[in-house]
């Protein structure tokens, strides 16, 4: 049975390790600052005992004020999971670091998130639209998207 690790516990660990990185930790998820996302992710992936070697999925949610990025991590070794979140602000040019170097599975997902939300992933080797064509205007999954492209 997959154990869903409490965000509180991991949040505590992360707070010790990366002071100031964790914004909020609740039972379900850990919310970290986007600047320290990469470090936290690397820590989560490489630390023994955590070993989050599997990125179950990655997506974003549009909350008007900010985009919340959701990373669902799993460890095939210990059979546990956790949810990592980060936020990025601004609707014009939101940027978050890319985790594609850690989990190659993020490749298409980040491109898709970019495509549909317009969130740029810094460090992604091939940051371009994936499901929509290159000349497409706007990002459809944003809440304020209207079909005429505004």
């Amino acid at each position, binding site marked *: 049975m997959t154990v869903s690790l409490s965000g509180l516990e991991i949040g505590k660990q992360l707070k010790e390790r990366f002071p100031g990185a964790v914004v909020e930790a609740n039972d379900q998820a850990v919310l970290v600052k986007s600047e320290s996302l990469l470090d936290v992710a690397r820590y989560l992936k490489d630390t023994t005992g955590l070993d989050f070697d599997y990125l*179950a*999925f990655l*997506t974003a*949610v549009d909350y008007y004020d900010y985009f919340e990025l959701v990373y669902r991590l799993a460890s095939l070794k210990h059979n546990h999971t956790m949810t990592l979140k980060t936020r990025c602000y601004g609707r014009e040019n939101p940027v978050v670091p890319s985790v594609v170097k850690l*989990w190659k599975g993020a490749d298409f997902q980040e491109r898709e998130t970019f495509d549909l939300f317009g969130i740029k992933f810094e460090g992604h080797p091939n940051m371009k639209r994936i499901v929509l064509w290159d000349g497409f205007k706007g990002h459809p999954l944003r809440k304020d998207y209207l079909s005429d492209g505004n």
Partner: protein
Amino acid sequence: MAIKTEPFLLNIGPQHPSTHGVFRMRATMDGEVIVDMEPVFGYLHRGIEKLAEERTYNGFVSLTDRLDYLSSMSNNFAYCMAVEKLAGIKVTERCEYIRVIMAELQRIASHLIAVGAFLNDCGAFMTPIVYMIREREKILDLFEMVSGQRLTYNYMRVGGLSQDIPEEFLPALDKFLEQMPRWIDEYDQLLRQNEVLLARSRGVGILPKETAINISASGPVLRASGVKWDIRKVDPYSVYDRFEFDIPTGACGDCYDRYRVRVEEMRQSLRILGQARKQLPGGEFQTPVVQPVHLPVGEVYGHIESTRGELGFYIVSDNSIAPYRCHIRAPSFLNLTALRDMVVGWKIADAILIFGSIDIVMGEIDR
């Protein structure tokens, strides 16, 4: 003996017989060898995730059918489970069992197509796929019987099923369970030991264990690489903890292993079906609250082992009648990430084979 030329660009697809939908590989070729490849897709993009935000929770079930159209039942199952998890609905025993039966039948049906198409890509001229479609038809008959459709079943509902199974379903299922193992054996005889197939698929397109994990592969692709990871076992949902079955794994993650894993999974599904059939209880097929309108605020991730891997629905609710956000973790989409790594360095014929062995469904990838 590869003939080398200067590199040239070859568009494999989107109108190619073996790209399983409208999928395109922009391959840079050196003679017959692929030196670089970029997958291009999106021809089927319908914005299902956006549509979900504008539909009621139950109204979206029929759209999940259109995701992975070869395993609609699994999609229904995953979506309903996720919503039920969010709403805190506990479905009845009978419903769980019927769902499991449907999901496993769907797995067999889908794997039949996967294997058949894989062998067809390998060049076995239509025979395996025709045989396997015949078996699939039998399963589709069963589905038609319960849901009234042969492809987009729209059978499950949040909180249960749309209708109970008709009384002629169980005898037919028994008959199917009795016949099917022998057919699978026969298909195994058809090509499993075939020298040409072995030559073509063994050692071709190896996806090493570490890469498979790193690339978030799941389902038969991951298992063929030797990772014993099956949501049904590691995170048993529904009533899967009541069944005995094995997780077949491959030795090295080549095309042959992926083919073998799928065939073995069909056998395991039959085992589960047999047990589920025996344990199937009576009672209601749905909970009294069928139409949950306003779901509590929160978020949930419900995932099942779909035929192609981990199918998950990440749903954020804001207490309105529709999901605030519904993300679909599509297994084919993530498995496809592995394609480039596997294909580069192989010949075009191998590329087709490797692509076939991943077994993607474009409806799910483009969403």
